């Protein structure tokens, strides 16, 4: 039973975090970053992500026109830098608003339904 609870918690936590990853990437890419630097940056602010999830996601966001990607070949190791497009900036702002609303709603629920 304890294992089942732990597994349920892990699933719910993963679902919750997965939903925040897109918003987190968009916000972080207001400063141009390459994949691994973004991964480390997200980790440093407490949003652990895995490379095999993040890299495909960055490509998807690029495909949707929310991120722009450019290869930087000036450094010894060529790296693909992702930065926010205008459309991406709009979506990022919307998602942030949504997050604030959710946060307020949860705070209210927590307060009013002890």
């Amino acid at each position, binding site marked *: 039973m304890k294992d089942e609870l732990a597994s349920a918690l892990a699933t719910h936590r993963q679902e919750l975090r997965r939903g925040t990853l897109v918003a987190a990437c968009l916000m972080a890419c207001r400063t141009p970053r390459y994949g*691994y630097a973004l991964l480390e940056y997200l980790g440093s602010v407490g949003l652990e992500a895995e*490379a*095999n999830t993040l890299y*495909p996601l960055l*490509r*998807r966001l690029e495909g949707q026109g929310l991120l722009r990607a450019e290869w930087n070949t000036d450094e010894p190791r060529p790296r693909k830098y992702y930065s926010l497009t205008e459309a991406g900036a709009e979506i990022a702002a919307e998602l942030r608003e949504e997050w604030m609303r959710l946060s307020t709603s949860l705070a209210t629920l927590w307060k009013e339904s002890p």
Partner: protein
Amino acid sequence: MSALTRRYIDQVTAHLPDGQRGDIARELEALTADMTEERLAAGADAPTAEREVLEELGDPARLAATYRSTPAYLIGPELYPVYVRALQWILPLVLLVALVVNIVVYSATEPSGQLGAMIGAVVGPVVTAFLVALGTVTALFWLFERFASSADRRTLARDGTRAWSVDALETDVVQARDAQSEAVVNLVFVAMLAFVPVLPTTFLYVGHLNGDGSFVNQGLWDFWIPAYYVLLAVVAAQAVWTLVRRGTSRPQIVVRAVTDVAAAVFFTALVLTQEVIDPAIDSGILQTSGGEDWVDALYVVVIWLVAAWDLYMCWKYWRSLPS
């Protein structure tokens, strides 16, 4: 970059469209180099660091699937209800057609049919038809799930299932649906029962007992068998009535209950006063075992159990009809 990492990246890109391979390969090269470097800086030796990095990235096929963002399931939740509904319609139809066609083909090609041989000849093709239908429908949905535009998928998901509204919860709708399914089953039963008086004994391996005649005493054609067909016709007519009306009604339930009782009385009289089974079989099996009275009593019990069950169904429908 080592040969091992090269092979890993090749395996990932092998699953990807041509246009994306080069770009993703370059990005993965940079990523594996960065990840390895971090581990080397933490004190790991080169082979261990490389192995750890590749293990963290995981199965190349899975990583490629994440890049392609193809669904990791056969039929997704959006189309699943349509898929189930398609199977509910297609599989029974295919089963029925395959069964009928194979039985007809068997009967037409075998001069003296036998039940066992017929089952043997029919089961294989019917099972194959069932599996092919199941596989084909699944494959079509699988393809649609992956290659149709999301707008087309939404349209199919919306139009492919029965439009639902709260009205579907009304008791008369539920009851009408039950009554219609039961009417279809009744029609199938009537069709099967119609064969009973003429079923040849060779069909069940007892042809030697009465020289390939039928199971039922053919002397009963004077009154009893024609009356039996009239009863079947009445039951079939009621089923058709239910299907045409798309449900049942109180007068129909009364007719059905009366038919039940009439049929039970008819069969009781038949069993108690007539020799139903062909006399040659009767003398061959039943009289040697000396169980004729016992068997008649069993028939009567079964007849009234069936009648009681159907009367109970009538009562159930009566109660479920809105007053």
